[in-house]
């Protein structure tokens, strides 16, 4: 505990006895340090125990485990040094505004002279702007005014710590906004330390220095702590323009949605159901809305899952790849469509947690990505990467941001490779930011990003809607690069080997279906449905684009490869290329045990079994070196020397990634 720490919550646990016997574990393992002068928000779904946590800091409720220290002393009872502002104001209705405030003052400063007492009361009534209402009874005041009185009452006794329990929850939006500004101003002026419970995301971002997100109960814990780096004083109308605002906001919303999804998932029975000789036939399959999810949609619509015995496959639409990662980490997803870089990324611990081995037995799509630059750049004559480099040099005063969907996606790696090979440092000359696809289009429209690299339909949409111009396609960077793969946890694959084969078969058959241009129209129609992409059919295309305004894919080749020789079989060389690129940009350390990692990631035997049982030719493994547009070969024999010789790279490290012994999922 540092001297600046005011509140120190250690290993806090709260167990409520239930009326019908037993206990409800509300909170578990809460650790939180709050510095003096800090404003903390506690956010989470109803019933996650955020008010319980606040009450325990206040001393209104005592923990069943762990301690709360305020100023180094264990909280055993409530006290005026930890003043609480309650959601329903808690004014005494038979006392006037002045008397309500006086009640608190008299308790804390019993010997105060009458004149000072009056002055103190008046000062705080004025502070919250209620100078004219001192003699009124609470029932004569509006909700917002009552809450202001409650705040004045709390501040009048100069607490060390101000605790607010959804203080503005019951107010209308306008009043809430005004009160938020007032509270912020008072907190700034008096250097108050405050903890606020809220479920309003914008309120949390506006007011807080840090936002503590609590997971759902039972046994809620701190899921995430976000630092709000928006400088003070803040204004409600201007914070929204701060670059961090929307990312913080979407981070919290993502967190809350994730909690909701986990809750919904937990509400349903998840007993492993075995049938048809398969270990598990009830599968939750994650995807995000992109044209490359077509094989999943087709497998569902055309009954390929059921054909191979998987009669209870449920497609789970995530809004970002992060949802897929988290779904794997918390076990709510059985398998997912994922960017081809994600298996190595998660296996090497790129998500920031323990390395989680992921297995892929099928490459679902290749190609399908493009780099789009904003229309305003095209209007200034930026039509090639050389133009862009020159344009960046002439506009080096402003920050330049390019959007990617995920650090482990091919979009990031291809974009970086392309920029670096063209003399643009992807970290120094521009800034690459992870954004959800829909957000990218909005950002491109309002000019906060220069462009992005993403899969369809987002490039076609940008050009059709006139916000962006495609500048380079992946066919020109690396024709035939792996796009999306089928990923499962290694432990899952070991526990359900026959299910894994069946899933691979179903999707491989769907890939074959999707590769036929005769089916593209039907696929576009299917994907246009709300369950998948939820956008106009015309915006979803799989083939070469020609004739339309943003004419592209100059080689006239199919834009998405779903099936064919060498298309679907997982390739260790490709995953090694991804591994070296991720290390090159310091997303992960380069694993010294890369051979073991690749061995465990690429499950060729499952693919071969699936292909053989479908009667498809076991397509040969591409042994040749990978060659990208710059003509630099990558053969995978000496990745470290390759890394040392690429012109632009970050300071990468080489480290052993401990994966442990492969172990099947416990039933």
């Amino acid at each position, binding site marked *: 505990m540092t001297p600046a720490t005011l509140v120190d919550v250690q290993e806090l646990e709260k167990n409520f006895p239930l009326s019908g016997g037993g206990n409800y574990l509300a909170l578990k393992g809460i650790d939180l340090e709050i510095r003096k002068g800090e404003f903390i928000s506690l956010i989470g779904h109803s019933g996650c125990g955020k008010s319980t946590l606040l009450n325990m800091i*206040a001393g*209104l409720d005592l923990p069943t485990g762990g301690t709360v220290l305020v100023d180094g002393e264990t909280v055993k*009872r*409530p*006290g*005026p040094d*930890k*003043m*609480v502002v*309650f959601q*329903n*104001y*808690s004014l*005494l*209705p*038979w*006392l006037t505004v002045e008397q309500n405030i006086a*009640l*608190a003052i008299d*308790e*804390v400063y019993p010997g105060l002279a009458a004149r000072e007492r009056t002055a103190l009361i008046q000062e705080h009534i004025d502070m919250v702007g209620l100078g004219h209402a001192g003699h009124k*009874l*609470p*029932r004569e005041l509006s909700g917002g005014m009552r809450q202001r009185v409650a705040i004045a009452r709390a501040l009048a*006794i100069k607490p060390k710590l101000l605790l607010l329990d959804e203080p503005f929850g019951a107010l209308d939006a306008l009043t809430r906004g005004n009160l938020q500004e007032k509270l912020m101003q008072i907190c700034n002026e008096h250097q108050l330390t405050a903890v606020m419970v809220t479920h309003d995301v914008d309120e949390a971002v506006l007011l807080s220095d840090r936002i503590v997100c609590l997971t759902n109960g039972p046994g809620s814990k701190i899921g995430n702590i976000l630092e709000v780096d928006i400088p003070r004083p803040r204004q409600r109308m201007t914070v929204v323009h701060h670059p961090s605002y929307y990312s913080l906001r979407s981070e919290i919303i993502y967190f809350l949605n994730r909690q909701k999804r986990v809750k919904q998932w937990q509400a349903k029975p998840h007993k492993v159901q075995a049938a048809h000789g398969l270990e598990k036939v009830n599968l939750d399959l994650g995807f995000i809305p992109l044209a490359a999810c077509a094989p999943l949609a087709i497998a569902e619509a055309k009954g390929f899952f059921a054909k191979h015995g998987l009669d209870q496959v449920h497609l789970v639409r995530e809004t970002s790849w992060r949802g897929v990662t988290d779904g794997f980490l918390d076990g709510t997803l059985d398998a997912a469509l994922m960017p081809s870089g994600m298996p190595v990324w998660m296996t090497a611990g790129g998500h920031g947690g323990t390395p989680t081995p992921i297995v892929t037995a099928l490459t679902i799509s290749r190609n399908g990505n493009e780099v789009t630059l904003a229309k305003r750049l095209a209007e200034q004559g930026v039509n090639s990467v050389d133009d862009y480099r020159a344009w960046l040099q002439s506009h080096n005063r402003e920050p330049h941001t390019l959007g990617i969907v995920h650090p482990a996606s091919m979009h990031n790696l291809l974009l970086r490779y392309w920029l670096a090979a063209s003399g643009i440092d992807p970290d120094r000359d521009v800034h690459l930011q992870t954004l959800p696809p829909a957000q990218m289009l909005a950002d491109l429209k309002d000019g906060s990003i220069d462009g992005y690299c993403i899969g369809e339909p987002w490039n076609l949409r940008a050009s059709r809607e006139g916000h962006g111009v495609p500048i380079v396609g992946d066919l020109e960077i690396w024709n035939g690069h792996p796009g999306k793969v089928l990923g499962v946890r290694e432990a899952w694959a070991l526990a359900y080997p026959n299910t894994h084969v069946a899933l691979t078969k179903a999707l491989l058959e769907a890939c074959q279906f999707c590769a036929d241009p005769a089916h593209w129209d039907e696929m576009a129609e299917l994907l246009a449905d709300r369950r998948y992409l939820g956008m106009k059919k015309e915006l979803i295309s799989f083939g070469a684009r020609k004739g339309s305004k943003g004419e592209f894919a100059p080689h006239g080749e199919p834009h998405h490869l779903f099936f064919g020789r060498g298309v679907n079989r997982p390739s260790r060389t490709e995953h090694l290329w991804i591994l070296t690129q991720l290390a090159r940009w310091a997303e992960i350390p380069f694993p010294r045990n890369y051979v073991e990692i690749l061995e465990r990631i690429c499950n060729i035997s499952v693919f071969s079994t699936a292909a053989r049982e479908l009667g498809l030719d076991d397509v040969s493994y591409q042994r040749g070196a990978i060659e990208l547009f710059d003509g630099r070969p990558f053969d995978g024999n000496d990745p470290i020397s390759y890394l040392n010789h690429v012109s632009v790279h970050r300071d990468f490290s080489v480290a052993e990634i401990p994966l442990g012994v492969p172990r099947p999922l416990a039933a």
Partner: protein
Amino acid sequence: MTTSSAPTTSRGDRTPPTGLALWWKNNRKLIVPPILGIGGFLLFWQLSASLGLTKLAGPLSLFTEERTRELLFYPFFDRGGLDKGLFLHSMSSLSRVALGYTLAAIVGIAAGIAVGLNKGLDRAFDPLFQFLRMVAPLAWVPIALVLFQNNQPAAIFVIFIISIWPILINTAEGVRQIPQDYRNVALVLQMSSGRFFTKVLIPSALLYIFTGLRISIGLAWLAIIAAEIVMPGTPGIGFFIWDAYQNSYVSDIVLGVVWIGAIGLILDRLMAWLQQRISPGQ
């Protein structure tokens, strides 16, 4: 169908009512029905008495019987002993009520707070309270007489024991119903129990306490009549009625009943007014 000409023709005919006419227009719906109701009832009563359907004297007998008219118009005379005007009888009754009721209020509020604050006490005594409150006023009279061996304290005891239950039960409920928010405020401010009592508990439970007091004043008044009727020899309105009955002064009984009703109503209104005065803001 032409609608355009209608407003201009009708406007001139109606002058808006003013003064008394306006008052009458606004209030007639409140005044006419009770007059009709009470008048009808009195008429029915008088008719049935005049036609000999019942032995009970009709309302007009208050004026026609000389004895009764005297009692009606001269309530303040005192010829010594039990021969007094109705006002004096009533005052005797009221003073008994005041004593018993005050005792009941003090004990009832104190016990109610104790029971409301303490769950253990509540569980221990609640069945007893619920049981005792169901005992009828008259049933208490013999017990009171055995206990006190004397009419005067026995009558006061009956009033006390009848009127304490609503006060006690309502006070306890009022204390139990103090919102957790108010308790939290007291907790956070670390109020002493004395301050909590005066600043939070009493004001918060006041509405309930007054509800109990108001119910009890009615009960106390009911009880006194019962007590006095079975404990003759003491001046009081109950005795007056019993005495009139013994002497077959039927119209006197009617007059006594009218007094009882009127005083009961006044007491209730008085409590209602006090309640309004003392606990505003709720």
